[in-house]
């Protein structure tokens, strides 16, 4: 029942958290230049990537996003001088945390897209969408829940597969928001 090797034919939900000054404007430019890209992305505008709390990313994954993009100004171009540096640092730490809890980091991308880079916006969004499409729907939270259950059986000889398929677990999973 593992997801990795199945060919997925689904429309991934991609959420992009972007800053107003560079990436949002870059996406605008892609629009005015009539460049085409997959329609899977939903853009949330922030003043600065510095405003983006990692909790938003977690919540987005929880709410069914299959991929999350965080994008802002190139280093040195931040409208607020250093917001993107703080963001970069914060996300480096956050990625490590995600990795630790078992979320596939290929689902979360950080990028610099300037107001002049309409083409880059298209590339970044297209790439992420296609990558996530091959990865399949976001299963990690489900698995996370399993892991938690496993730990209660750690050291015992309980067969994990039966635990995973237990009705209690299914119920527990279904009750997650």
């Amino acid at each position: 029942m593992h997801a990795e090797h199945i060919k997925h034919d689904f429309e991934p939900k991609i959420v992009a958290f972007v800053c107003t000054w560079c990436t949002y404007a870059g996406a605008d430019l892609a629009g005015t230049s009539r460049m085409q890209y997959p329609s899977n992305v939903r853009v949330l505008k922030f003043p600065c990537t510095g405003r983006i709390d990692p909790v938003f990313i977690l919540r987005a994954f929880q709410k069914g996003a299959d991929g999350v993009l965080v994008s802002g100004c190139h280093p040195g171009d931040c409208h607020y001088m250093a917001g993107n540096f703080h963001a970069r640092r914060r996300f480096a730490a956050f990625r490590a945390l995600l990795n630790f809890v078992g979320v596939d980091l290929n689902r979360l991308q950080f990028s610099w897209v300037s107001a002049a880079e309409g083409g880059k916006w298209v590339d970044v969004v297209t790439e992420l969408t296609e990558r996530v499409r091959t990865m399949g729907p976001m299963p990690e939270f489900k698995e996370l829940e399993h892991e938690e259950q496993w730990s209660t059986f750690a050291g015992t000889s309980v067969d994990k597969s039966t635990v995973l398929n237990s009705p209690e677990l299914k119920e527990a999973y279904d009750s997650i928001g």
Partner: protein
Amino acid sequence: MSRIGVFVCHCGENISRTVDVEQVAKAAGEIPGVAYSCDYKYMCSDPGQTLLKKAVAEHKLDGVLVAACSPRMHEKTFRKAAEAAGLNPYLCEMANIREHCSWVHEDRDMATAKAKDIVKLMVERVRKGKSLAPITVPVTKRALVIGGGIAGIQAALDVADAGHQVVLVERDPSIGGHMAQLSETFPTLDCSQCIMTPKMVDVANHPNITLYTYSEIEKVDGYIGNFQVTVKHKARSVDESKCTGCGVCMTKCPKKKIPNEFDQGHGMRPAIYVPFPQAVPNTPVIDRENCTMFQSGKCGVCAKVCGPGAVDYEQKDTLTVEDVGAIVVATGFKLYTIDRKPEGSPIQGYGEFGYGTIPDIIDGMTFERLASASGPTGGKILRPSDGKEPKQVVFIQCVGSRAREKGISYCSKVCCMYTAKHTMLYHHKVHDGQAYVFFMDARTPGKGYDEFWRRAVEEEEAVYIRGMVSRMYQRGDKIVVMGSDIQVGTQVEIEADLVVLATAVQPQDGADLLAQKLGISYDKYNFYSEAHAKLKPVECATAGIYLAGACQGPKDIPDTVSQASAAAAKVMTLFAKDKLERDPVVAKVNEKYCVGCFACKKVCAYGAIEEKEIRDRQGNLVKKVAYVNPGVCGGCGTCQATCPSKSIELDGYTDEQIMAMIEAL
């Protein structure tokens, strides 16, 4: 918010061609809390805006979403319309279904589905929106200008002539900057001092200008409209109020052999001195490092001969605090000098040019002093080593500039022109002499500039050689210059009596430190960064601080003066109102939850976060909390994402708003 109105725009065909706008409007109408929804051909048109205003009144809407183009295009338009209808403008938002949807997706079903989603997200944002009131800050109508070169002088005079008080701070003993050092100036060859010194005198005499020379900026607090600047007045050892500028002290000073900085170290000056005869103010200063009195306690000649008793060895550095509303930074440039590689200079040095060991290799500014009537040679071109008139002079352009491999990739902008000028000045003074110029390109954009350059080449007999110099060395009393002529494809060797290097224009020493005090940004070379390379070339990203002259990048005098006047105009615009209105998207602290860790303070690039004491009725300190100064806050929200106790929030982008949008995904 329970009565939201959604207006879906066709944008002619731009949106409706790929997005089924009727369906989007219908779906929007079904979102709980949406009291009204419609679609319309051109929302931004007059009838479109009227439609919005009427709907607000008729349906008692308390929030508005316009699904149309990018908010970067029309957010202001619709916020104004909403305001006219009696709504708070910040309760009006835009959903971008053109740039982010119809224009980039051809598939009508997909695009329509996406447009519906975007509208759904944004309705949540409107629902959780708050009314925001514009922030007003009082403006102190007094300006500070840092640097007294032509840039600072021009800016100070313009602002002062407009009737505002100006404080001009110059770190040298006199104002004037580099322009005062120049001999004649391109492209007209008029005498620099003749046009400069009257302006310097104007500054000193202007009733609205307070001039502090030999002073530096110690500390800058506050924000646009309300800066408090601490200025350090270095001890001159001469009381400015008593000194008459007679100059007796200078003639009697026994220490006379100190290289004069103004003459690029070529003339000599005493330990008590004015940098040059036309200095403003004409008050001497004692160079304590070279003064016998200060070094060994014996001498005191100047104090004895000073009639008005102005010499004061006990004088101390003093500080004053100046309240100003705007700051113009005009600290200018320095030249990379081949015999004095400044510490931390990005340029790697020119060992192949006999790095600083050959006395007759000089820089452009030294040549200016040699050519200047007020210079160390009285305007005669004589070479430093033996005072002989050089008959063959080699000029080398782009020394350090445009040399990526040496560490600087930018063009110093003035060298092509001043080298052409130098060849002319030389030719006018040494009729039988020959000038050679090694150059790679001639860059002479500017009114009358190319004509000027051609004159140097075509009429004034300078020999221009396109190519690089590979090596220079001393042979007897000559300097052998070995280079290539890439047009002819040969090696050339010239026996020169004097070599003049057009060395790179670099920012002043300490430019980075000053930027840190001011909270403005600078590039990797330490030139100050403008807020926008094209549209805001005189503003800094930090509100209320403006740039003028070569501190921002290499510039000639006309460009410097233009920018200085532009900066002055910006200051005057700021001073035109008593109160400043600014965007209310700023952070606020919830003092109840703030634990006073000041993590926010560390990340705020604007220095907007202050420490505030909370006291009980008896006046005992309860705790310290963060306070965001709304006048300073740039509105990035970095503090909010950093705050571990979630006690700081950016208006307009609250957690509640963003979470609601994510919920609606």
